[in-house]
């Protein structure tokens, strides 16, 4: 039986007041889960809460079986090293080249010799399709290329969970499809669990095993894309059919 890597138990998230309340969800090992919902529904905030950045206003976030926010920082860091996060605004360090950005977790957190680090970075950049941009600065590549670099950095330590906040937003369909394929490849090759925030239905159909629909301040539905598409819930129906139509 699969084990729950991430659990949200009656979690409320937000900054001053809750945008999402009583969120209950479980994410199991090896699955790709999409967080869906309209703009401002709290998808990204929930993602940030799950990866230790925004404490929940209420409830418990359990990562790898431990209550993330009840742990002291020293005990939290080893847990956080088992996840990788690709942010919506890529969050690459502007003063470092792409390869230095991707190598940073390896240099900071492992004692691997430099040739292995270089090779790992080269392989990962090739995998996400930007092997020839290794020496460029983030400011000198396109938005899509920066997103790929961010994904390479998030995955370089072979994390057990990869969180990706809108990894295909604003990209052309060809590049978006390649990134979707890369996420699936991460699951197959690294055995990673992937939690992705996305608006792109085609992208979610191609990658996600399950989707969690957020609407009206809580979880509106959980299921496969097909199940959600046939949901009678008003918000879910509008989300899918407004896009389909």
């Amino acid at each position, binding site marked *: 039986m699969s084990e729950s890597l991430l659990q949200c138990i009656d979690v409320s998230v937000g900054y001053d007041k809750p945008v999402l309340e009583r969120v209950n969800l479980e994410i199991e090992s090896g699955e790709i889960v999409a967080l869906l919902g309209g703009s401002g529904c709290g998808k990204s905030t929930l993602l940030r809460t799950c990866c230790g950045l925004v404490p929940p206003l209420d409830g418990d976030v359990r990562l790898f079986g431990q209550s993330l926010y009840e742990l002291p920082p020293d005990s939290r860091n080893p847990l956080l090293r088992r996840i990788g996060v690709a942010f919506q605004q890529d969050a690459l360090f*502007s*003063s470092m080249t792409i390869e230095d950005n991707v190598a940073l977790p390896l240099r900071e957190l*492992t*004692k*691997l*010799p430099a*040739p*292995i680090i270089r*090779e*790992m970075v*080269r*392989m*990962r*950049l*090739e*995998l996400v399709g930007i*092997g*020839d941009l290794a*020496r460029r*600065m*983030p*400011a*000198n590549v396109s938005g899509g290329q920066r997103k790929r670099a961010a994904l390479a950095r998030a995955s*370089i*330590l*072979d994390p057990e969970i990869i969180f990706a906040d809108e990894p295909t937003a604003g990209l052309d369909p060809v590049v978006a499809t390649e990134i979707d394929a890369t996420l699936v*490849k991460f699951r*197959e*090759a*690294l*055995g990673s669990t992937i939690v992705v925030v996305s608006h792109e239905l085609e992208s979610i159909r191609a990658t996600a095993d399950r989707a969690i629909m957020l609407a009206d301040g809580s979880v509106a539905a959980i299921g496969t894309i097909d199940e959600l598409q046939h949901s009678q819930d008003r918000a879910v129906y509008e989300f899918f059919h407004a896009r389909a139509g």
Partner: protein
Amino acid sequence: MPTATSVERSGRTAVVRLRGDVVVPTARHVYGTLRALCRRRDVKKVVLDFGEVGKLDSSGVAVIELMKRAMRQRGAELELDHLEQHHEAALELAPPQQAKQPPASDGPTWLEGIGARVLEVADTLRGLARLVGDTVKQGWLVTTRRRRVPQGSIGDHILEMGADAVFIVGLLSFLLGMTIAFQGAVQLQKFGASVFVADMVGWSMVREFAPLITAIVLTGRTGAAIAAELGTMRVGSEIDALTTMGVSPIRFLVVPRLAALTFVQPALTLMAMFIGIAGGLLVAALMLDLSPATFWTHIVYRVKIGDFAQGLGKSLVFAWIIGVTACHLGMRAIGDASSVGRATTRTVVVSIFMIVVVDAIFATIITIARTH
């Protein structure tokens, strides 16, 4: 589970049996073993036996890729044996072939380097000239009420640049006035000419130090702030947004800041002149037994309106040096947050350098004019 390796030799073939996980903590050990084998000239083939390997992660795949390349380079071969499905899945992380390396560049020659630098300086000067021209033009349009700056912006900038700097400029001028008086008193006392401390403090504060110390403080506070603010706006495309709206960024952003500096710098300089003199007066009274009335009479007698005009005139020039440099470098920030940092640093360095150079030019011209 840690990796153990055992090596068996059969002629020119070495079989390496791996046991355990080949992951980040163990990859270093596997790499060391394989590299040692790779260096042996009597080994033409290495077989890596994965029969007892558990997990294989990216670091393990990287080690295998490195070794494959190294073996190929010396005409040897690396074979992977007893791979399980999850090992093969992990090996898919490696690209099918070596990425094309960008062609090595010889870099520019020294002559090209000088040429590029000259062009860069010319471009900077052209940009500066354009900024000054546009600012004068937009300033004229605002003065003649044909265009407007954002309501209240000049007043806000005056408060921000001026009121907040009063304490620090005042304190530094007072201490500077005291220091000049101390230094002068020690020497002048030897000649019985203590009373001339007043002349010394008055002239040096009014002609030189008040404009200079005010300009240096404003460069650090205001110049850096302007460059950072405009740089951030440039990086965030706010300046582009103004341009596409048909609103002149010079009128909207530069004119109010320069107008405020044009007012604030001489005002603070005037304040610094009197506070510096007060600092000198205190030292003269306490150290030289010079009465405040005598000190003040000397100041009034020796320091003329022309000296004040010289100091205030310089402060106006300094204000424009700070404002134009900060606006120019801030608006040229390109790309990312680090360029804003660079613009801010360069503003402080370039402004102070220019201020000192212009001050030296002023001193030379005025001295020559006085002696003729």
